[in-house]
């Protein structure tokens, strides 16, 4: 992800006026994942459990011959586990060269989010570790929490989810 030159990076205001996100449903709340990172959305399918995996890694699936790990996004964000239902989906996102599946309660829509509606994550957010969040978009009908996918998918941030219970900045 690192850029070779420390060139001018567009600030939030200079970016395109709107960003597109895929809206993921988790525990009744809407989360936005940058559409550029989302490769595809799969119906729920059996996941091969991997013994001794980190608690929020559910196992692996076969994606057209590729083996990809699937994480439980609820647990990753500290929201508590839930049984997968008929609306559950596996959202496949790109993480560098690897693909990772994220199990979510549902995928509802693709939204254009105007940049001026995005606020930093505040006290609004309950449960989740704030480091996994990029901001909150206040739309007319609902709030969409924007995920900082690169941190959610950073295996080194593993401990974060475990620490969620402790309230901190």
């Amino acid at each position: 992800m690192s850029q070779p030159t420390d060139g001018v990076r567009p600030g939030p205001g200079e970016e395109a006026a709107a960003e597109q996100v895929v809206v993921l449903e988790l525990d009744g709340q809407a989360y936005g994942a940058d559409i550029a990172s989302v490769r595809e959305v799969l119906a729920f399918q059996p996941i091969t459990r991997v013994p001794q995996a980190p608690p929020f890694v559910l196992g692996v699936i076969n994606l057209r011959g590729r083996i990809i790990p699937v994480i439980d996004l609820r647990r990753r964000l500290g929201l508590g586990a839930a049984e997968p239902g008929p609306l559950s989906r596996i959202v496949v996102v790109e993480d560098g060269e690897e693909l990772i599946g994220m199990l979510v309660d549902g995928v509802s829509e693709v939204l254009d989010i105007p940049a001026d509606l995005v606020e930093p994550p505040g006290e609004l957010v309950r449960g989740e570790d704030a480091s996994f969040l990029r901001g909150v978009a206040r739309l007319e009908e609902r709030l969409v929490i924007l995920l900082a996918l690169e941190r959610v998918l950073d295996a080194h941030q593993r401990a974060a989810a475990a620490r969620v219970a402790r309230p901190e900045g």
Partner: protein
Amino acid sequence: MAGRGASLPGLSEEESRLFLQEAGELLDTLEEGLVALGQGAASPDQVNLLFRAAHTLKGNAGAAGLEEVARRAHDLENELEPLRRGEPAPSRADVDRMLAEVDAMRAELGLAPEAPRAAEAEAPADEEAETEVEVRFSEQCPFLSVRSYQVLQAVRDAGGEVVASEPDEAAIEAGEEFQRLRLRFRGSPEEVLREIRAVPDVVRVERIGQAPPGPARTGGSGVASLESQAETLRVEVRLLDHLMNLIGELVVDRNRLGEAARRLGTGHDGVSLDEVVEHLARLSEELQATVTRARMQPLSTLFRRFPRLMRDLETSTGKSFDFVMEGEATELDRSVATLIADPLIHLLRNAVDHGVEPAEERRRAGKPERARIELRAWREENTIRISVADDGAGMDPEALRRRAVEKGFLGAEQAQRLSDREAIDLIFLPGFSTSRQVTEISGRGVGMDVVRRNVERIGGQVEVESRPGRGTRFILDLPLTVAILRVLLVEVGGIAVAVPLGAIDEVVEVRPERVERVGSEPVLRWRDRVLSLASLEAALEGRWRWEPAAGQTGLVVHHQGRRQVWAVDRLLGDQEVVVKGLGRWLDEARGLAGAAVLGDGRVALVLDVGGVMLAARVEG
């Protein structure tokens, strides 16, 4: 001074690149030759080669206006001159100094020493040598004669000279058309081949041979890479890798087809689907074997830099030892070679750091003062074995038991229960080995656990033998190729698990009434042995347990001479699978080498047999 990629003053970017590339090759030649010289193993031909390399470098550097480099090359040339006249080999100190000059020139040119790589070795540049190649054009190529002519032109553009061609130039100019063109040229093969590949519609350039001028052949004893200029197939490695992946997928599909065929049975028109499947199986096997052969490369491409590495270690550690390499001509799949490069460097460094004792200590122990480190490779049927052996201090099982307790891996009592062999195996536990240093060569920290993981991921095994005071020997048992592994599929706790067939002795019945206990540990008699027994499901979770409710099918598995029985729920049959990594999220899962997609689309976890045994021992 000029760095990589930058232009040298007075030269175009392209000229700079060519100059630097050739200079790098000449410096490699110098380095290898000097190391051989230092071992007293350089033949007269090698001395000549050395001298010529210094001479060419001097000329090139002078022409490029790099006076400092030219001066150093000139000094080297002068030092080497007497050797050509048969004067005795220079002292170690002299060779050290000359190697330092080579390093200094590298630094001047911004050519940092490269890590040993498993990439193809380029033959040392030799302006006089003739190279013969066969060029093939795309079948759709509409202008064969034009392209052929362009190829000849390309040779000249690269500063080469066409010695002969078939068809010859006249025929090409007359417009005759050929699918392939053979030609022999003089000049730097690397540059010429690069130019030829740039000609449109050229699909393949194959090197047929490199004939040295005159009767003199480089040869004799010494560093193999100077002489082992095996005929090389110049195909893009990426292409071969892709082909190998496709074959992997083909094997999976073949298995799926086989499964479908079994369900359908024989057709009505007399043609059995089974026959077709079987034929397909033979074809894909042959295809796999052929591509594997194409990916083979001699180990010398990997070994060639070890003499220098060891020499530098000798200098930096102040320990004295002889380093012997054998079997560099042994061929291995290049992807296997890539994966074992770092582990081998780690083992060699370990041999110096932890194996070889100070001279004083060796003398007291009645051993020769100079230690001996041997790197050997040989082929045994379908495996390649590579051993790294030293005659140093060896490992003390008692010390290892103590360290395991200190580091909290084992309780004192558990540690005492380990056999000596098991105690030595402790070094493969993640976090156990003390020296997790970043190697200068690879730039990456590699522990013994990574050595084992890399090797087992490709279906190989690491064995270690060590005797206190006598030395240590590591043996890597490697498959010829990585892509496909034969496994026995079993089911445990609802998961399909693939156990490498090579690790299984027998499938036995585990009847609860025949299970005995030694202390608290369940054991089973097998032949004339008493084997420790566990449920594989529990072992995979890191617990060493067996309950009568566990499956009644047992696998007798072995790893490094150790045997255990693992109870599984049921057998699913044997299969060939393509092993894939689990990705970084699951990298730390102990006891697993990866995963594989089965014929029915399910995912099976591929066991790392040694890892499961180890996890089990530690859990106790």
